[in-house]
């Protein structure tokens, strides 16, 4: 772990999360700095998406908590932009590109109001940034995979957050889109935004990110990429699961055992 001090974007404290009663993340604990491109990297089934969803508050952890700039998620939601996995929605839905990008301007506070001219302008600008303005009236199902991914990114840009959380934005996109997304990420970083990306491809991870969270159901390493991307640590993350740990997980699941003892509470 790096000793230098930095402004915290995100702190994850002792996070344990289970899926169907089986723990998929064990006591994850790390802090991430502001203004960096950060990759959450690990093999398949290592809990990357689960971690991202728990950070977003979409899943309830069994223990632990997340703080964003020292505040709980609920207080700072409007500073977070989110890009879910592209496959998580049905693209055959009757909507055009602009409809989806405008969703980035929806907020709890404007539920009964119309979107303002400002909102519309921001949506148009966001679409322009991903180079899809000419497609704004296109039905989303007619787009290529790369274009759909860019629509999701435009929606996140329209949210105008300080911190971006993206789930596998590089999956199933063509090389041109990959470059375009990458350029956008670098531009966002230069404006001081923090970008946290779930990424499964080890080949490109080192090239893309400044920081890395290396994950395999437990935290293997977290820090500047030079410190994380070492042979030993990669071996540890990718060299198969810890057998005893997964046996414990199975036991907990089968016996419907609690993950934390009753009455035990996390110290804040």
């Amino acid at each position, binding site marked *: 772990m790096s000793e230098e001090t930095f402004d915290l974007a995100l702190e994850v404290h002792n996070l344990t999360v289970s899926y169907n009663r089986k723990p998929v993340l064990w006591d994850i604990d790390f802090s991430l700095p502001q203004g960096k491109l950060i990759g959450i990297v690990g093999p398949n089934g290592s809990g990357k998406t689960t971690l991202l969803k728990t950070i977003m508050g*979409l899943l309830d952890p069994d223990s632990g908590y997340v703080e964003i700039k020292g505040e709980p998620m609920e207080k700072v939601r409007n500073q977070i932009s989110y890009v879910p996995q592209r496959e998580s929605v049905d693209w055959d*839905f009757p*909507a055009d590109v602009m*409809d989806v990008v405008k969703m980035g301007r929806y907020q709890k506070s404007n539920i009964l109001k119309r979107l303002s001219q400002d909102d519309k302008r921001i949506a148009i600008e966001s679409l322009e940034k991903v180079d899809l303005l000419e497609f704004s009236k296109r039905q989303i199902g007619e787009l290529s995979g790369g274009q759909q991914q860019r629509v999701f990114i435009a929606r996140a840009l329209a949210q105008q957050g300080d911190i971006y959380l993206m789930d596998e934005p590089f999956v199933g996109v063509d090389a041109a889109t990959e470059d375009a997304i990458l350029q956008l990420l670098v531009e966002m970083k230069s404006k001081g935004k923090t970008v946290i990306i779930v990424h499964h491809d080890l080949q490109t991870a080192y090239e893309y990110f400044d920081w890395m969270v290396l994950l395999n159901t437990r935290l293997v390493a977290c820090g500047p990429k030079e410190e994380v991307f070492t042979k030993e640590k990669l071996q540890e993350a990718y060299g198969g699961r810890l057998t005893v740990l997964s046996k414990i997980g199975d036991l907990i699941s089968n016996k419907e055992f609690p993950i934390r003892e009753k009455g035990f509470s996390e110290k804040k």
Partner: protein
Amino acid sequence: MDAFIDFFSFQDPNVRLVVLGMLFISLSSSLVGSFAFLQKKSLVGDAVAHSLLPGIAIAFMLSGSKNPWVLILGALISGWISILIMDYLTKRSKIKTDTSIALVLSVMFGLGILLLTHIQHSDFGNQSGLDKFLFGKAASLTLIDIQAFGLVTLIIVALVGVFYREFKLLSFNYEFAQAIGMPVKALSFLMNTLLVLAITTGIQAVGVVLMAALLIAPAAAAKIWTYSLSKMILIAMGFALFSSLIGSFISYTYVNMPTGPWIVVILTFFTVMSLLFAPKRGVFSRMKRQRENSLKINTENILKALYHLEEGKEEFFEWHKLDKILEKRAFNKVTLTNSLKQLSRKNWIVLGEQKVKLSKAGELEARRVVRLHRLWEMYLTKRMNFKSDHIHSNAETIEHIITPEIERELILELGAPKIDPHSSKIPYAD
């Protein structure tokens, strides 16, 4: 014709009641059904419809009244209970979604029948009429029913209008709605309540068994016609309204014709017609596209055959016997005749007695096809490392689909090669 005028002049107060009632029901169920359909909850709607029966029966047993508001309250409660049970089973047990829907549907329906039978065999007085919830009985709607339906429809339309944007977001991407801090639980609760309300009114006209059709069929038919959610909902409402009108008319005109089943039959007709005739995605437009594709392939192949016959010779634009073309490439007779007709319509060939020759324009077109074939073969060998004896069949198809833009890109990328991998000359336009 008389019956038509009688009906559509709405002079008969009974006709007015039925039509008004059906209007309300079809509006609310197609509106709410559109969202249920997009959220892939079609079967949930069916299960909820069946689950309303016990609620209605219990409400009647407790109150002894057939006042629609009392029955709606009972239905609302048992509809909600069924949604909660399905939710709980899916999330908290090993039972999968389809099983939990089927379980709730049949168990609640069974319970409902049990209670209805009990009511019928005990002295509840004016019990007759509760069985209309099974198969619906639009013709026996009363004024107080219609008032209740009207109010429920008004509530549904107003609430969907107010929360349209949020419902759209929730239906498209629930997780994102949750991520931006929308009160997703409250919104889902509202949507489900509207669903139950719409079903509650709907079953009185078409019955629990047919209710799912009234919810889902309009949306399914409408979705084929448009890419816009608001338009889809409007079209769905139009289908539902029209079907209800016709259905009511038929049951008014002919003795012993039930309204509900007729509405469903007409709705089904619309759905099937939409599937067949919708632009782009309809069965017929897809067939048309395929016919056009095969005509394009065949005509271009004839041009190519003619080009091959003349390639390397001094003289161009000679007459060629049809047999010669068939030697170059096998066509069946009908295909050959049709394709030749098409080519001469485009003035690409001149047709003679059992013979044919290329026109100037036709020769340019033939060159284009041959050029695309050979360029593509170059691309396959150079860029995709195909062996030169494996490229021909691939190029045979691809030559027909390459657009002028892609052609330009190919030429640029390959550096305008003079010959193809088989050492044949690549014919450029000039």
